[in-house]
Every structure is written in structure tokens, then in C-alpha cells.
């Protein structure tokens, strides 16, 4: 059967039949990828070169939206807000997730209890978690000020300063560490036990085993978590919308890049400008992913097939 005479393009009739069937089965995806991925990509680029309110026809505007971005102080502020968020939230989040995973990987019998509890906050939608944090942060009945008071920090309204609110949102994000921790844990489980046994026989101590075996073998998972975290950090939106009493406040302290994009699109009806913001974010996202991949060649270890 597999060897019937080859037809057009070197494909057998059976190949052609399977091709038709395969394409038929994936046809919903083909429609979806054209409508919800390819079209938005092309359309964003075109619209970003126009002046467009959403109500009238787009007018050609050249690269004006892009040049405007670089002189718009709000864009600078929002980009810095997102950058500060990413610079702190990503590494701290990875360290916490890694520490939790390493601890769960010890032979603790009741690990499933910890796993459940540590994952629970990841289930809570960001908007609801933001509400909870508003309550936790209340200088009166909130518990966070009480806790910090134990270390001599005076009670204060963290939501009243730009730096304070960013700190709050970075701290809030850490409660989602359970997700990355589970991914690390799965990676740790793939490290073959025999490697540790061999290392012990060779007299390697716990520290040496960690840096020579565990970490190198965990680097592919670390890469995955890092790319994921950076991608999510660049798109931070909801906490900046909800945690402050007015979205983006106070003094634009929580006006993240995505929030500024959203406001330009849906509050100021500047869809062309917002599209340019989106295209730049897209390019930055790809550049970051590429950079992480590129740098990863130096530290990611694709060895040992398990």
C-alpha cells in the first residue's frame, strides 16, 4: 500500500487522501489562526501607520505614531513602570518558585498538602486577588501593616505613592509562585537518582551536588519559566487597573505599558497610536525572548536523556 506509484509532487494517492483528511480535521484551527492571529498581526501594523478613532475611516499617518511615542512622557513613564515591575518581579518570582520546588523535592511525606496550599493563590483571578490586597493593606484593619509593625515599620498607606503601589503589585505577584514551582518540581523529578548516587560515591557534598547536577539539569526548565515570566510581566495590566483607587494612579505610579495602551485605545479612541504601542510591545517581547534564548546557549544544559 505504502509503495503505490507516486503521483503529483511525489505523493501517493494515499498521501493525497490523508492530506485532505488531515487538513479537514485541522480546518477549525486554520480559520482560527487566520482570523485571530495572522489578521490581527497584519492589521495592527497597518493601523499603527494611520490616524484612526474607530469611528471614522483610518487616515494615512506614516510613522508619526511611532515618532510620537518617543516624545510622549506618558509612554516613558508607563514603560519604566512595566520595566521596574519586570526587573523585580521576574527574578524574585523565579527564586521563590525554585526554593519552594527544592523544598518540596525533599522526602517530605505530606508534600501534596503543601503543593495544594502553595498552588491555591494561583487559582484566584488577578482582579479578586487585587481586592483582597486592598483589604490586607488597609492601615487600620489590614494585616500587612500589623506584620511590618513587628519589625518596627510604621503603619502607612502603601497605595498612596507610586513606588509603594509598584512594590505592592510586585509583592502580590509572588503569590502566584506555586505555578512555576510545580514546573520546577517536575523538572527536579526528571533528574536521575543514579547521578546523585554516583556523585555521593565520588565524595561530592550536598553543595557540589546542587551546583554540578541539580542546577545544570534544571536549566531547560529555568529557561521555560524565565521566558514565561518575562512574557507575562511585559503584559501586566489588571493590578494596575484595580489596586489603585483610580486606574493607573497614584501619579501614574501603576500606569503600566498595557494599561496606557488600553486607555489610548478605549478611553481616548486613539486606535492608531495604541496599535503602534502594541507593535512596539510585540517587537520588544520577541527581542526579549530571542535575547534569553541567545544567552541561554551559555548556561542551558541539554544533556542526559532520561
Amino acid at each position, binding site marked *: 500500500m505504502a509503495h503505490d506509484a507516486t503521483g503529483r509532487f511525489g505523493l501517493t494517492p494515499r*498521501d493525497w487522501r*490523508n*492530506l485532505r*483528511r488531515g*487538513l479537514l*480535521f485541522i480546518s*477549525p*484551527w486554520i480559520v*482560527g*489562526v487566520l482570523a*485571530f*492571529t495572522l*489578521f*490581527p*498581526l497584519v492589521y*495592527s501594523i497597518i493601523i499603527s501607520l494611520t490616524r484612526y478613532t*474607530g469611528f471614522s475611516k483610518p487616515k494615512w499617518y506614516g510613522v508619526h505614531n511611532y515618532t510620537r511615542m518617543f516624545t510622549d512622557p506618558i509612554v516613558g513613564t508607563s514603560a519604566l513602570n512595566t520595566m521596574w515591575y519586570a526587573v523585580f518581579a521576574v527574578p524574585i518570582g523565579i527564586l521563590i518558585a525554585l526554593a*519552594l520546588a*527544592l*523544598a*518540596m*523535592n*525533599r*522526602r*517530605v511525606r505530606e*508534600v*501534596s*498538602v*503543601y503543593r*495544594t*496550599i*502553595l498552588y491555591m493563590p494561583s*487559582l*484566584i*483571578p488577578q482582579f*479578586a486577588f487585587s*481586592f*483582597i490586597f*486592598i*483589604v*490586607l493593606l488597609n492601615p*487600620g*484593619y489590614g*494585616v500587612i501593616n500589623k506584620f511590618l509593625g513587628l519589625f518596627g515599620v510604621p503603619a502607612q498607606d502603601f497605595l498612596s505613592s507610586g513606588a509603594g503601589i509598584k512594590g505592592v503589585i510586585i509583592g502580590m505577584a509572588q503569590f502566584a509562585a506555586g505555578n512555576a514551582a*510545580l*514546573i520546577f*518540581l*517536575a*523538572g527536579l523529578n526528571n533528574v536521575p*537518582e543514579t547521578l546523585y548516587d554516583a556523585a555521593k560515591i565520588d565524595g561530592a557534598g550536598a553543595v557540589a551536588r546542587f551546583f554540578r547536577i541539580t542546577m545544570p539539569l534544571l536549566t531547560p*526548565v529555568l529557561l521555560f519559566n524565565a521566558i514565561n515570566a518575562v512574557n507575562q510581566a511585559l*503584559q501586566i*495590566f489588571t493590578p494596575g487597573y484595580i489596586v489603585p483607587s483610580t486606574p493607573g494612579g497614584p501619579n501614574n505610579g501603576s500606569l503600566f505599558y498595557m494599561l496606557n495602551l488600553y486607555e489610548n*485605545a478605549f478611553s481616548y479612541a486613539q*486606535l492608531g497610536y*495604541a*496599535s503602534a504601542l*502594541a507593535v512596539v*510591545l*510585540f517587537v520588544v517581547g520577541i527581542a526579549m525572548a530571542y535575547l534569553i534564548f541567545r544567552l541561554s546557549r551559555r548556561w542551558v544544559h541539554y544533556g542526559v536523556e532520561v
Partner: protein
Amino acid sequence: MATADEFVETPLAKRSSGTGRNHGWGARIFLIIACLFFLVPVYWMLVTSLKTPAELAQNTVSWLPHTFDWSNFSQAVRAFPFGRFFVNSVAITVLVTLGTMVSNLIIAYGFSCIEWPGRDVMFYIVIATMFLPSAITIIPLFDLFGWLHWINSWLPLVVPAFFGSGFSTFLLRQFLLQLPKDILDSARADGANEWRVLWTIVAPMSKPALATVGIFAALAAWNDFLGPLIYLQDQRLQTLAIGLQYLRQTQPGLITVNLLMAASVMTIVPVIILFFGFQRFFVRGITMGSLR
């Protein structure tokens, strides 16, 4: 390669102890402290939802309500159209989950159980779409749905789910690739066409993977904030995500945090129940993407 059984029963951190000596106490103490921190937000939401306005007005920190005020829940339900928003959220979540499971199973079948030239190259595009940020699609899709006169309806939130998604297709395809080929082939030899093989043989065998995909779709739909915010203007169509924000913004003087927390409890509890019911599928889904 994992078998279908291992797919469900993930041996995460279940390595039995090799040395016999229990040297996990440092790890245990660290985990207990971490868990206490991680429990605080959920716990604080629960206790605040039961406190009286008078107690909150005293501005003191109390770990248990002085009196348990269960009427907060009935008051919260009356303070905003909770029932309607809840029903809307359930309806959208059910439709999205159904669409995701059905469409991605069909698509994944095409990417795994039928061998056709160019299939694996095409699959790279599926993976690439997983990395497309939503930022770039928001404005074009708003226009697209506007041209279709879908704005201010559930269609923009629900219809895309019926056309596959990168993550779900990927996850299901990985699972379907592990199914024994000879069962499918013998069904084909008996004269079953591909559609029939999919629904009578592959679908029943894929329940664990379908559950994983369905749960993640349900969670994303229930927790979606930006989608309803952009596409729904009519209050009668809104979901709980936006409803809570209404509750906070529209009556800042009248609505006290205990009602906001009571409404939050009623929003989050269905998710937590879902989690406890389907925990093993969650764990599998989270670790699936990273390791293959």
C-alpha cells in the same frame, strides 16, 4: 514515554525515601512557613467577609470576627446584580470550555492520528502562536468583531474558543501521539471513517487530557477580566469579574469591604471547588508544556 495511566497519576515528588533517615525537617519548616504566608490572602478574605461594618470601623486587626455576620452574603447578593452576573459567568465559562474541548480534540486528531505530508511543519506554527501576546490582537479583534456586529454580545468571548488554541491543541496532540496506533488501524480496517474513529475510540480514551484542557479553559474564562471589560457594555451581559469592580466603584461610600469580600468569596469558591475536584489534572497540565 508516559502511558495513559501515568498521564493521570503524576508521580510528582513521590519518590519514596531511599535512605530511610528522615532529613527533610529544614524543608518541612520552610514549607510550613511558606504555606502560612500563602494562606493569608484567602483566610483574610474569608474572615473579612464575615465581619460586621462596626468591627471594621474600629480599625483593629482581628484574626477572627467578633461576631460572625452571615448576612454579609445576602447583602452582597442584593448590592449588585450578583445572580445575573453569576449566571452570565457560568454560561460563558461552559460555552468556552465546551468549544475548547471539542475544537481542540478535532484539531489535535488531525495533527496526530492522521499522517499527512507537511503535518509537523504546520505544527510549528501552532507552537509559535502560543507566544503571541494578547496586546497585539486586542485592537484588530475589536474592529473585526465590530464589523461582525458582535460588540456588546458574548460572541467575541465565546466563538474564538471553537477555533482551537495553541496550548490546548499542543497538550492534546502530545497525548494522542501516545495512543496505541493498532487500535485505530483495526477500527479503520473494520470500515470506520476518521470521524467515527475520533468519536468512538479516541475521544473516550482521551478523557484525562480533555479534562486538563477543559479545566484550564474554564479557569481562564471564569477569571477573564480584559475580555468582558472591552466587549461588554450592557450591564445585563456582564460577568462577575466586572461586577466586582462595579460593586467597588459605583457605591464607594455605601459598599463596605465586608460585602466586597463576601462577593469575592462567592466568585472564587467555585474555582477552588473545581481545583480540589480535578487536582491531578491541574498538576499534569501545568507541567506538561515545559517538559516535552
